[in-house]
């Protein structure tokens, strides 16, 4: 039975309304990249080696002293006066943006490490492409597009192998990834050692696929990275809703007839694209990091897929910029590693301060929540304590009779298992909030305090009564349940409860407690 194709009648979730905006983004990116990649004013056709560092395998280490950069150098770097700096920065920023975008989907699909596998698995493809061209057209083996095509094929083959292994054997996903990664990489290394023994195979140009030569990036490389990033962003924007579906509910998508397998493959192909183009210019490590770290950082800031993608792209670009600038300022910092560490820095900042899931905002939310709960507990205790005295008390000048009753703090202690210091903290805080007032014989509630105490106690009793009426829970068991829920009851829920409960307690603003209120219960 063929799956039902989605038709116009199927309600497609609207996730991203302004699709045209996302489509415009790549062009907005493309413009400056065209302008900046143009040769500099001095007319260099080829980048000259400058103070930008060489890659990790660089050998020129004659200058071993650590040196702070001069002001001129800082301004040169920041203003991108050097052609070389400009190229390197632009290339890594574009890669960061593209990788951040596609990495978001991979992160949400819990496939972050696929980029790792792809970049390792592409190695034999590069070697084979080199050998194939050398055999067909001797001397032309280092043609970049063909090498990248070989890498692309091998990377895709690697991805398909992981899927195959997972599907046709008892081997789990993580092991399948590790097997493909290591075996492909091993074959690649073996092929490279053969190539090295050939007369034409002085593989300086091929070696860089492993480490990358961030510093010797050319404008052609930048163009290629830009192309890949634009492709990634355009496809992500065009298939945004579909990818979102894939990330969050693949089964649902399949049951509605979406071609999830194909979508998955398209997503994988995007990862392969960005990983392969990044590979030859910035190296494996950086590609893997760029695919994982910015999206993981972006997750701390938002719960929405659209904003998460944008934030991940921005963070990817920012960390590439920061890392590129720092590595060109300090002669011995290799760009790839510094960019990774810049990403890590942004990750740590997000981990600490991210507005949605960051540790600090989450801790703050929890802290204020605890304060609110403490205040509610105090007010309800006071209300329950003072309620029996309402009838006996003389109506005073003020509006609320509850606010006229004086009480001592020891009375509260007898009803709650609070320590004396906790109680005094609660009382102090409530006084500062204007809910309590210290008088000579102890304390009394203010008008607003009395109002809030009524509210809290009413919510508590409403929920208790509701539990007794509708959940069939014994009256002496409802107090604890209600204690948990009373702090989060919304006003409209309260009015609904009031409606439900008023059948039993007609015309009552404050229902009586459904169970005895004795000190210490």
């Amino acid at each position, binding site marked *: 039975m063929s799956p039902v194709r989605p038709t116009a009648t199927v309600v497609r979730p609207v996730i991203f309304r302004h699709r045209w905006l996302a489509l415009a983004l790549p062009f907005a990116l493309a413009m400056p990249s065209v302008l900046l990649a143009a040769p500099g004013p001095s007319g260099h056709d080829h980048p000259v080696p400058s103070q930008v560092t060489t890659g*990790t*395998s660089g050998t020129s280490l004659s200058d071993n002293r650590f040196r702070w950069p001069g002001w001129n150098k800082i301004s040169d770097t920041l203003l991108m006066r050097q052609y070389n700096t400009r190229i390197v920065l632009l290339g890594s920023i574009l890669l960061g943006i593209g990788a951040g975008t596609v990495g978001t989907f991979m*992160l949400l699909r*819990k496939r*972050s*490490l696929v980029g*790792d596998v792809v970049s*390792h698995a592409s190695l034999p493809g590069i070697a084979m492409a080199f050998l194939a061209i*050398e*055999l067909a057209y*001797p001397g032309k083996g280092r043609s970049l597009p063909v090498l990248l095509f070989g890498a692309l094929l091998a990377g895709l083959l690697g991805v398909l192998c992981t899927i195959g292994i997972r599907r*046709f*054997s*008892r*081997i*789990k996903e*993580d*092991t399948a*990834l*590790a*097997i493909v*990664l*290591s*075996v*492909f*990489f*091993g*074959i*690649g*290394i*073996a*092929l*490279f*050692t*053969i190539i090295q*023994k*050939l*007369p*034409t195979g002085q593989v300086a140009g091929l070696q860089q696929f492993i*480490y990358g030569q961030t510093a010797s990036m050319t404008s052609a490389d930048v163009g290629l990275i830009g192309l890949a990033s634009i492709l990634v962003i355009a496809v992500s924007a065009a298939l945004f809703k579909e990818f979102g579906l894939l990330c969050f509910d693949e089964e649902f998508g399949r049951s509605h007839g979406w071609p999830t397998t194909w979508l998955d493959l398209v997503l994988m192909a995007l990862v392969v694209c960005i990983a392969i183009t990044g590979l030859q210019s910035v190296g494996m*490590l950086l590609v*893997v*990091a760029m*695919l*994982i*770290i910015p*999206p*993981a950082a972006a997750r701390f800031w938002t719960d929405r897929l659209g904003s998460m993608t944008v934030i991940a792209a921005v963070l990817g670009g920012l960390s590439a910029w920061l890392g590129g600038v720092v590595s060109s300022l300090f002669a*011995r910092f*290799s760009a*790839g*590693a510094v960019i*990774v*560490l810049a*990403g*890590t820095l942004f*990750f740590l900042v997000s*981990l600490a301060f991210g507005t949605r*899931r960051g*540790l600090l905002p989450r801790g703050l939310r929890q802290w204020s929540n605890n304060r609110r709960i403490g205040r509610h507990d105090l007010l309800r205790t006071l209300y329950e304590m003072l309620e029996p005295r309402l009838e006996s008390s003389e109506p005073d000048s003020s509006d609320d009779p509850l606010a006229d009753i004086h009480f001592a703090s020891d009375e509260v202690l007898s009803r709650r298992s609070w320590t004396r210091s906790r109680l005094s903290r609660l009382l102090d805080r409530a006084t500062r909030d204007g809910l309590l007032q210290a008088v000579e014989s102890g304390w009394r509630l203010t008008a607003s305090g009395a109002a809030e105490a009524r509210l809290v106690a009413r919510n508590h009793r409403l929920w208790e009564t509701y539990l007794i009426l509708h959940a069939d829970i014994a009256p002496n068991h409802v107090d604890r349940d209600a204690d948990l829920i009373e702090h989060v009851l919304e006003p409209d829920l309260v009015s609904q409860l009031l409606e439900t409960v008023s059948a039993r307690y007609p015309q009552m603003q404050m229902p009586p407690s459904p169970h005895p209120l004795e000190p210490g219960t």
Partner: protein
Amino acid sequence: MLAATDIFTASFTWLIDDWGKLDTWIVITGALAAMACAIPGSFLVLRRQSMMGDALTHTVLPGIVAAFLLSHYLKTTGWISTDPADPHKAFDATSYTFMFGGALLTGVLTAILTEWVSRRGGVENSAALGVVYTSMFAVGLLTIRLAADSVHIDPDCVLYGNLESVWGGSDQVPRAAWVSGGCLVFNIAMAGCFFKELRISTFDPALATTLGINATLIDYALMGVTAATAVAAFESVGNILVIAMLIVPAATAHLLTDRLWVMLLLAAIIAASTAAIGHVMALSLPPVLMAPFAEQPLLSGVPIDSLDASTSGMMAAAAGGLFVAALFLAPRHGVLVRIGHRFRLSIRISAEDLLGTLYRQDETSRDIPLQTGRRTFAQRYATWRLRRQRLILHSSGQLELTAAGRHAARKLIRAHRLWESYMARHFDVPADHLHETAHKVEHYLDPELRDQLAHELDTPDTDPHGREIPDD
């Protein structure tokens, strides 16, 4: 030991003409390193932490660099003495001690950091691993560059290993073989001593905790040991290829057996054979592969026999080859075995269905259409086999049951109708829905179960549709 290697060398000489002592030592060192890796690797595979192996082989880098820096510092300040014969020797006992210590610590640190990022930060586990390991690797790379004047670590050597230069030519056991062998013995001892704890915490961490075994501690210990093993092995098989030796033999063994100790043993055997096969491949495969292109300008001036590939790369390739072989040929979990099993089942079901249809045709003396549309291969094969077994006959364009075929069909029809009766009695299923289920279940009811059903139903004569239930 040395005499044994001579015999080993001799036994390979027939395979490859210029097999020498160096080749023997390469195989032995590689095998020791691979076996040392296979033991913690098996546990990684079973605990679904294979990518942790990948991460650990990267994160040991900062640990090694830090250890080197520390031992260098201690030597220059005179806290520990240097080898008087060769004061600038990079690898001596002290360095090794520091290196293993550093690796152990970074292994544990990786595990702790990943755990923390994923639990406290709410980051998905594999992403947390990716963040931690790329960051730590970057720190290691930077430190190497910054400390290049005091530490001489060649990243190439760390990443690819150099098995070819393992043996200096003297009549001594090479250092890498000692290190790998020592690591192997240590790993065997650890696995032996804590076998029970490892097994329980691998398969059921919650049970391990209730039994008073600290599963977290075992996890960290495993990570530390894995990292130390990676360090021991990377000198010979290379840092990144260590992951091949950690995971691939273990995964291959996992396909072959369901018992833990058998798996460990098989993984070690596979790992050792990987080294031998890998080295033979490295020597013999490139000339064979390149031979057709010998006339090409690409190979001009290169004697084809001089081509060889990196042994560690070929070891990974050989491990991959063995894995693929196991994937298809494994006795219980292999793809071919399962395909064969499924095919035999579909043949049996097709044959039984045909018998049942012919039986019903005889019973009602009505022509029931056998099969509309195209018949599958299994159905055609089943028909052919039934005819060969003389269970059905082909007479005047019609298929007919023989006496033996009738006997076989009665069993099936009996199972079908008994199941229908059982369903009608015990489940609230309408009569026109009984057939579908019974049609599937009939193939799986053996004589014993048929008797039990008949007994339970007080030996009924007819099914809910009123048709006769034949005897066996």
